[in-house]
């Protein structure tokens, strides 16, 4: 990122480097595997002591909706895992207001505490990151 590294030849040791990682979740929790595999990345990432945030946009807001019941479709309900994020010191969860409202949801519908931000603010949040991973 800087003149001093020139983009090459940094030590492979990642200790001490803290980057801002944002995981952007845009897809419904079931129907595709993206949401589940995104959550797996987030959990692994927690071990790296990085500055982690999660954003929920579009149908991604459904990932953290309360009362998921997946038995009829024979898929594991992984939504309780989102509650475990706090234990990994991942506490910055953002929901895009427009996506939430378009789907008739309110901030009372989520199974974890979230910060609801407008589309413009979400763009600012993305702008501040070093690494944005969208799933």
């Amino acid at each position, binding site marked *: *990122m*800087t*003149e*001093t*590294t*020139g*983009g*090459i*030849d*940094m030590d*492979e040791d*990642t200790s001490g*480097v803290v*980057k801002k*990682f944002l995981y952007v979740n845009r897809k419904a929790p079931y129907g595709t*595997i*993206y949401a589940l*595999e995104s959550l*797996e*990345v987030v959990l*692994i*990432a927690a*071990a*790296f002591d*990085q500055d982690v945030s999660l954003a929920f946009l579009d149908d991604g807001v459904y990932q953290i909706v309360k009362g998921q019941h997946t038995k009829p479709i024979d898929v594991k309900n992984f939504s309780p895992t989102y509650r475990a994020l706090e234990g990994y010191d991942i506490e910055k969860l953002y929901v895009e207001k427009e996506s939430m409202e378009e789907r008739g949801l309110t901030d009372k519908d989520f199974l974890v505490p979230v910060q609801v931000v407008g589309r413009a603010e979400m763009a600012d949040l993305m702008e501040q990151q*070093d*690494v944005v*991973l*969208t*799933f």
Partner: protein
Amino acid sequence: MVSAAGGGTIRSPRVRERLSWGRSAKAFGLARVRDINDTLTLQGELMKFGILVNEGPYTHQASDTAYLFAKAVLEKGHTIHRVFFYHDGVHNSSNNTEPPQDDRHIVNRWTKLAQEHDIDLVVCVAAALRRGIKDNNLAEGFRISGLGQLIETGIQADRLVTFGD
């Protein structure tokens, strides 16, 4: 931040130093460097890229685009820290892949790129096992490892570029 446009010369003293050691082609994985002057006239600053491939071959253009991007990166003199294959992207590493003769061989293309430029191709173990990719059907040039390798690339690379939906 690194300037992507400007320049025409390499500003970083460390990069200059490296080049003056005469090991530029190998150090930067350059595909078409004829001599040191070619390297020094590259536009802008050299960067280290990470690449994430999230879709399988043929169904989706993500793997093709990632491959062409990787080649372009190398041709411009940049380096690739790692290519990480996740989600259905792990299918890019299956050595059972046999496309028709007149089509591109996406898997072999990655293998060749890795061998020619010493690039680390890493397949996520959890995603791979889910989809039947194991060491015994893993194409040459790939290795299976954990998601930590993706995070490490995010930390180490100047830019991490995602290909897929």
